[in-house]
């Protein structure tokens, strides 16, 4: 029953972080709507944050650093979500669609 | 800026005044009547559905003139009478009040010149069946006679 103690190994968290990151990448590439992409991006960030937090717990001498880094990631994610969604809304008003392929005019 | 704080202060005071009003009501006794357990006495003039008035001997005062039937705006009264052999007056044989259409306007009582109709004090008239509102007033009168007769004995 090694499974019951995996939460005490660094590797578990790193692999799990990578898993979320991979899901995020997949979502980002496979999604067609802007909002879906945004959701995928959030997943990506969560994966990164988990990595930071894991290193923070197991490796760093100063465990505040990782937490502060993750905190900053959260702040950036919040800013990103706000801006991204306002763009989504603006785009929707303009094109009546949130499908990324419908926004042909953005190509320049 | 002063408006800002007077607004705040005035608003708070108005809210507290309102809360004081409701708080004063809190310990008072309820004014409601616990209906199924308690009952109200109806006023003398209360207009329930109509009822026949019986004479001394218990027979209805009605002479079957059909004034009430004609006065009724919603045709909810139907009555029949017959003239027995050797009698001058018609005798009421049935008096059906269809309470489903009655609007309690009282036209029938007003049109009656022979003191044969009155309002009952019945206000408890809820039912789930339509037939309960087809009221045979003659039967009611007979029952009342029985009840009052039983009381006298």
């Amino acid at each position, binding site marked *: 029953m090694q499974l019951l103690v995996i939460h005490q190994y660094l590797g578990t968290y790193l692999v799990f972080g990578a898993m979320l990151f991979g899901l995020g990448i997949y979502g980002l590439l496979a999604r067609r709507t802007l909002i879906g992409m945004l959701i995928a991006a959030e997943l990506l960030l969560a994966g990164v944050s988990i990595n930071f937090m894991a290193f923070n717990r197991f490796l760093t001498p100063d465990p505040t650093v990782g937490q502060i880094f993750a905190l900053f990631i959260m702040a950036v994610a919040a800013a990103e979500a706000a801006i991204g969604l306002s763009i989504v809304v603006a785009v929707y008003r303009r094109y009546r669609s949130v499908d990324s392929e419908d926004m042909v005019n953005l190509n320049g | 800026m002063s408006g*800002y704080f007077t607004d*705040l202060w005035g608003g708070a005071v108005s*809210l507290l005044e*309102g*809360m004081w*009003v*409701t*708080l004063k*009501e*809190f*310990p*008072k006794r*309820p*004014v*409601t009547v*616990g209906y199924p357990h308690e009952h109200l006495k109806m006023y003398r003039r209360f207009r329930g559905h109509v009822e026949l008035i019986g004479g001394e001997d218990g027979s209805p005062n009605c002479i079957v003139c059909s004034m009430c039937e004609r006065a009724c705006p919603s045709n909810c009264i139907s009555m029949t009478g017959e003239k027995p052999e050797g009698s001058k007056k018609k005798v009421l044989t049935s008096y059906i009040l269809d309470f489903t259409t009655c609007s309690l306007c009282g036209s029938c009582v007003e049109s009656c010149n022979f003191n044969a109709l009155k309002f009952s004090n019945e206000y408890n008239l809820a039912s789930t069946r339509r037939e309960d509102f087809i009221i045979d007033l003659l039967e009611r009168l007979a029952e009342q006679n029985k009840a009052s007769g039983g009381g006298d004995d």
Partner: protein
Amino acid sequence: MELSLLNAFIAVFIAIAFVGANAAYLVWWERKGAGFFQRRPGPTENGPWGLLQPPLDGIKLMTKQLLIPGGVDKAIFMVAPVLAMFPALVSFVTIPFSSSIQAHTIEVGVLLIFAFAALGSMSLLVAGWSSRNKYAMISSIRAVSQTVAYEIPLLITTITVVLIAGSLELSEIAAAQMGGIWNWYIWPFQKSAGFNIFMPISFMIMFICSVAETNRAPFDLGEAESELVAGFHTEYSSMGFGLFFMGEYANIVIGACLITILFLGGWACPFGDLGFFPFTHHVGWFLLKLYLIIFVFVWIRWTFPRTTIYGLLNLSWQYMIPLSLFNLLLTAALIKVFA
């Protein structure tokens, strides 16, 4: 840490019982109180003083058919009520009912309550939206914007208290106010607060924001029945509705607990430490304060008309947020100067 986490999960089950009983009898109390405020007796028919009303209501709700409107996203529709109840239960884990009765001591107890309150607002959103009902949709948007608007002053005010107490843990905040009624943070001129004169205003802000957070009258915009029929739970029946109902009352209890701990000294006895029966004594005081606050909640609900969404947001942005921010800065400065 591992053991305490386990405790937390066990405590959730205890919390369910506590919340369930509280929610049920708060409903009874609300109806009874409403009756007394309105010159009528409230529930009387079931049991003495209508005391059997809540369990009977519960049975009725449970035996009713759970209707799922056509065309809804069933999974989300069903998850929403659970999501409404769950955060309230988790929040109970960290509430200290006395110096010794606290299911799980967590360093950031205050944050936990706010975090799960945020999760609760998500449930309203999901419920209103998955119902495919316009009223529910408007209601959920209202409820969320209201919660978001009032979370800010609520957090700021809480931070003020946290500053004074020097801890994010609820039991430590309560413990800092021990030693008599004059030590409670509701009063001005606390030494630990740097003799801040505005503490009662902080308390008022906290109180109003708690009412708004819990979507209660006069801020019950989410369930404004004269406007939006029944709001976000228009389409819910049976236990779906029951869970929302319970969750609402559980939130009220949590809001009242928070006020009690942050401003009224938690389990602290108003007459200082008398030294006898510390255990029951303390829980008793806590519950007394808690139910007093809840009584005021009920009282307010049955006195005032409802605000509108812009009135509510104006109140938040024009009054609550500036005042609470000002108070936070002032407190910080005063503490720096005096402490």
